[in-house]
């Protein structure tokens, strides 16, 4: 029951912020809050992997990029030249490829974002399995280094491959129409709808993860974090569960990548960058590691401030500094540390 109260409160806060910003005529704030919501989807997925299952990933931006680039490539690909092909005509018949025109009025036949979403999901799972099976045998620093290596490879691929637009990235990604009238993207006019789409996804994601934590599988993951030796001694097949949580968190990142790419109308290589991965790790750490709510709150706050440009050109430096500060002064995360301090104060007062 408690979990539903928290989720409902989150939904209420989301609605209040939208109403408030509309009433005050400041709807432009919603743009950054929408983007922050998608980045938070990555963060809470990583929180599950790091905080609960105890496996670090310094390459999570790669999964975001895999989702984003997959959908960008598939939905901007022009199938006009292949209309005679059976597969393409079948796709058109099923409504999974739609004719249109690009910016210059050239006829365009592009794949439906639904196909791209499915494709992104499959590619993400396949890559997560290929990377996860060998890499998750490693522990601690070694796992961190291996995932970092994976992140760097994906970053350099996006930067160096023509298909991915090299340093320019891919632009002109169409909006993602979920049902007629509700679409991810579509510019400033659509911002309220986009804000709600993003937050509904975050709320659903949180609900799924909160449920997971209290389930049999979640307990197995937390046991692995607690003691691998004891976990296998009670019959838990560790590699299987590690891979499972790795895939789940990769899918969260990939889904966020797909959505944000449609929202922004494009994606660039910086989304795959190592600094992005470090940023996600910093957010989970500052949120308190095994703390989904802490991670969500800190993620929205920090991403929002960063996207509004409060950190200026020191953006990445701020996240680096946060990481150092947290490790030194508040390894349990900022929220828990403050709460413990306040509780200690209150106790002293009560005694007096």
């Amino acid at each position, binding site marked *: 029951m408690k979990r539903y109260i928290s989720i409902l409160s989150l939904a209420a806060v989301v609605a209040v912020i939208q109403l408030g910003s509309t009433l005050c005529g400041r709807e432009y704030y919603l743009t950054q809050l929408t983007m922050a919501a998608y980045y938070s989807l990555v963060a809470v997925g990583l929180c599950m992997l790091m905080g609960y299952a105890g496996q670090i990933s310094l390459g999570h931006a790669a999964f975001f990029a895999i989702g984003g680039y997959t959908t960008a490539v598939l939905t901007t690909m022009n199938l006009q030249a292949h209309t005679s092909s059976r597969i393409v005509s079948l796709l058109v018949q099923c409504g999974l490829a739609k004719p249109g025109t690009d910016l210059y009025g050239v006829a365009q036949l592009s794949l439906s974002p639904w196909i791209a979403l499915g494709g992104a999901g499959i590619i993400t799972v396949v890559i997560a399995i290929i990377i996860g099976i060998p890499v998750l045998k490693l522990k601690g620093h070694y796992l961190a280094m291996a995932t970092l290596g994976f992140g760097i490879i994906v970053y350099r691929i996006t930067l160096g491959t023509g298909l991915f637009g090299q340093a320019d990235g891919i632009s002109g990604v169409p909006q993602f129409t979920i049902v007629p009238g509700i679409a991810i993207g579509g510019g400033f006019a659509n911002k309220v709808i986009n804000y709600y789409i993003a937050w509904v996804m975050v709320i659903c994601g949180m609900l799924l993860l909160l449920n*997971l934590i209290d*389930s049999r599988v979640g*307990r197995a993951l*937390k046991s692995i974090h*607690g*003691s691998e030796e004891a976990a296998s001694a*009670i019959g838990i*097949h560790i590699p299987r569960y590690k891979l499972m949580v790795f895939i789940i968190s990769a899918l969260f990142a990939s889904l966020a990548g797909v959505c944000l790419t449609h929202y922004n109308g494009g994606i660039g290589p910086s989304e795959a960058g190592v600094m992005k991965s470090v940023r996600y790790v910093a957010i989970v750490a500052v949120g308190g590691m095994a703390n989904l709510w802490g991670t969500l709150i800190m993620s929205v706050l920090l991403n929002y401030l960063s996207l509004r440009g409060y950190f200026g050109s020191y953006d990445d430096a701020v996240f680096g500094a946060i990481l150092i500060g947290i490790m030194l002064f508040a390894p349990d995360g900022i929220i828990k540390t403050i709460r413990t301090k306040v509780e200690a104060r209150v106790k002293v007062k009560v005694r007096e």
Partner: protein
Amino acid sequence: MALLEVNNLSKFFGGLKAVSAVSFDVPQGNIKAIIGPNGAGKTTLFNLIAGSIRPDCGSVRFKNSSIFGLPPYRIAQRGILRTFQNIKLFPNLSVLENVMAGMHVKGRAGLAAGMLRLPQARAEEAFISEKAHEMLAFFNIGELAKRNAAHLSFGQQRAVEFARALASGPALLLLDEPAAGLNTQETAQLASQIAHIRGKGVTILIVEHDMSLIMDISDEIVVVSSGQKIAEGKPSDIQRNADVVRVYLGEE
């Protein structure tokens, strides 16, 4: 037929024979002990049975099917649970969750069922939680259920570890030097706990250093020295065995 049959089990580390052709049986319902001086290979023997070290040759049969070379999680799934010499609880979980985790092999709920809280997953959780509470009550630590497992006394931690190991209803319980680091009073308490567990019909194989505990509780004793079995029998026979007295008891 015995519950556990160990035949000619051997393990070499390089040229060193850590365990050399050891054979013994653990009959259903018994408490069997493995003793030996430091470095005799009894911990290695224990780990060979628990699966944390892979044996080189010989055979290990449990309920008349081979468990030779299986990894620890498969051995646990067969119904052999173990405890650790330096108690290994999950410090990030509550006492209740530790015991619920111990019932992992009894559950079926998968990832999707858990994330969506499907009815069968919820029913299973309710069942597991109830059983875990029963297990805590069995060890008289019901009031600790919500406490964090990291913040318990040594005796409480051991009770939680017992509860976790027994939660899934194993046929065989392996105890790795449970009396290590205990004083006389705590050892007496441990002995009564072990008797309590045996009362549930669980067969126990115990590796131990503490002679008084072993002589007190075990039905049969296997003595190992330099990786080989040098004697096997009832506690009274072992106490009188000249070889045993020479390599082990004589030292005390």
